[in-house]
């Protein structure tokens, strides 16, 4: 049975990745699962210099989900290369480094530095809702997404995946721009802007007031965004949003996503990605598929 999928030239041993920001720098969850079994690891967003992130409260629970305003807290590219990458590159899985920056130049500089390292691809976060500079301001602008994509693609020979925000009217327009500027694929979706209020203190539950909503609550919304892109743009899509089990993952694959990322559920069940890979295998066996690619995009619309 074949579980391998290809995203441009990037071959994954199976279509299950772990999403940026939900798996640390890639090795912290090693007590709970065999990292080598994953299709790939997408690291926490890195910026050129370390970022402290936002003050507490950074997270709040909401129905079937959570809000976060971490604010891209990270150790910066240099420390990542020194301290984290040596362990990551020993793994037998694809390493995709996620980059978040405050300016086009910073994206390019991060990619330029990391391009020399043993990593397999870049995921470019143009859609974090929790930082003032960059973040959503970029992700909601077609011209900025185009400019960042074009310049990053020109700075590396490795595959470039653009992570899109759902906080726009037509996400497929952004996927189209990413494709035109040479992106290998798009990840869809990042979190929705959300908010929660403590009625006893009458204050927002997050210090940043609004945050990114993730978890099962957003899954149907995410799936509709993936569907919109798949129907309108011929670019590989990596589906993300509230995936908790193999059935959830299969919804995205059947809709046309070439791979999926497990996000918030890594916090709730750190061994979930492996259970999901096994669940996909069971599904293929039970329905007599020999190759996961037979399932991808097999959505029956009539």
């Amino acid at each position, binding site marked *: 049975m074949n579980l391998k999928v290809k995203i441009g030239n990037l071959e994954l041993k199976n279509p299950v990745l772990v999403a940026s*920001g*939900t*798996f*640390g720098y890639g090795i*912290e*969850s090693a*007590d*709970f699962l065999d990292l080598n079994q994953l299709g790939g690891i997408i690291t*926490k967003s890195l910026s050129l210099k370390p970022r*402290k*992130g*936002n*003050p*507490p*409260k*950074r*997270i*709040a*629970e909401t*129905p*079937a*989900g*959570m809000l*976060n305003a*971490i604010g891209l*807290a990270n150790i910066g590219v240099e420390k990542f290369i020194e301290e984290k990458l040596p362990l990551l590159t020993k793994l037998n899985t694809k390493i995709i480094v996620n980059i978040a920056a405050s300016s086009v130049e910073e994206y390019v500089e991060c990619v330029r530095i990391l391009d020399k390292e043993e990593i397999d691809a870049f995921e470019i976060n143009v859609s974090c809702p929790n930082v003032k500079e960059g973040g959503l301001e970029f992700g909601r602008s077609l011209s900025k997404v185009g400019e960042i994509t074009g310049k990053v693609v020109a700075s590396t020979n490795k595959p470039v995946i653009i992570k899109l925000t759902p906080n726009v009217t037509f996400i497929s327009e952004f996927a189209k721009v990413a494709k035109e500027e040479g992106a290998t694929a798009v990840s869809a979706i990042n979190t929705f802007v959300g908010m929660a209020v403590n009625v006893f203190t009458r204050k927002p539950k997050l210090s940043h007031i609004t945050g990114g909503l993730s*978890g*099962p*609550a957003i899954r149907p919304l995410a799936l509709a965004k993936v569907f919109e892109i798949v129907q309108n743009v011929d670019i590989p899509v990596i589906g993300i949003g509230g995936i*908790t089990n193999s059935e959830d993952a299969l919804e995205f694959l059947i809709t046309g996503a070439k791979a999926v990322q497990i996000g*918030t559920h*890594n*916090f*709730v*069940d*750190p*061994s979930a990605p492996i259970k999901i890979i096994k669940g996909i295998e069971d599904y293929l066996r039970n329905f007599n598929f020999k190759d996961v690619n037979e399932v991808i995009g097999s959505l029956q619309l009539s």
Partner: protein
Amino acid sequence: MFQTLAKVVEKRILTDQIILVTLRSEELTNNVKPGQFVNVRVSETCYPYLRRPFSYCDVERDTFKLMFTIYGQGTKMLANASIGSKFDVIGPLGNGFNLDDDFENAIFVGGGLGIAPFPFFTRVLKNKKNIYTYIGARTKEFVVTYGLQNYKIATDDGSIGFNGNVVELLKNDLDKKFFNGKIKIFGCGPTPMLRALKQLSEEYDLICEVSTEEAMACGFGICQGCPIELSDSSGFKLVCKDGPVFNVKEIKL
């Protein structure tokens, strides 16, 4: 760290609101230090979605106890669990209290459910150190003495024990030179109480460690959801992974 199913073997109602649940798991009871915690998945569905962190209240052979107030949906589900039911638990998590310092008198200061880690700590230090426990609560209805020894109580309304806050009660004893030998303070409770302990430890030049609390999702450092600011404003540490126990000098309260 382990992710495993722990079985509910006993439940005890301590007060109208406070409950003690005993779970069994070999993995989760090996090499645990007082001050460490577990992260419990209270529901198999998506409501409530995130795990709930609880201090190890006590550890005995292959069982451990969790003490909590029935506050929201998550704690209600755990409190209502039937004997024999199982919960997906991650642990042991975080860094516990540090026992390497040179001290003869262990002073435990717990505010409200902040006393939760001290029954286990009492078990570990019994017959090795002098233990003095200071319990603070709003009223006598919120006072729990389970597993504690040599305790004094302070209540905000004076309904039992000292009328005032628990740090004032400790300060009185420090002023009276009530303790013989070197002292180390271990605190757990609401932030205003920890802040008062920080001031007190600075005033009397005492070593003080506190167990802190912050909303968290994962419990082991991947979500970055539980920052605590460092005293020198240079950045944040994570309550789950770098804490929950910190030397009070290290953090801003």
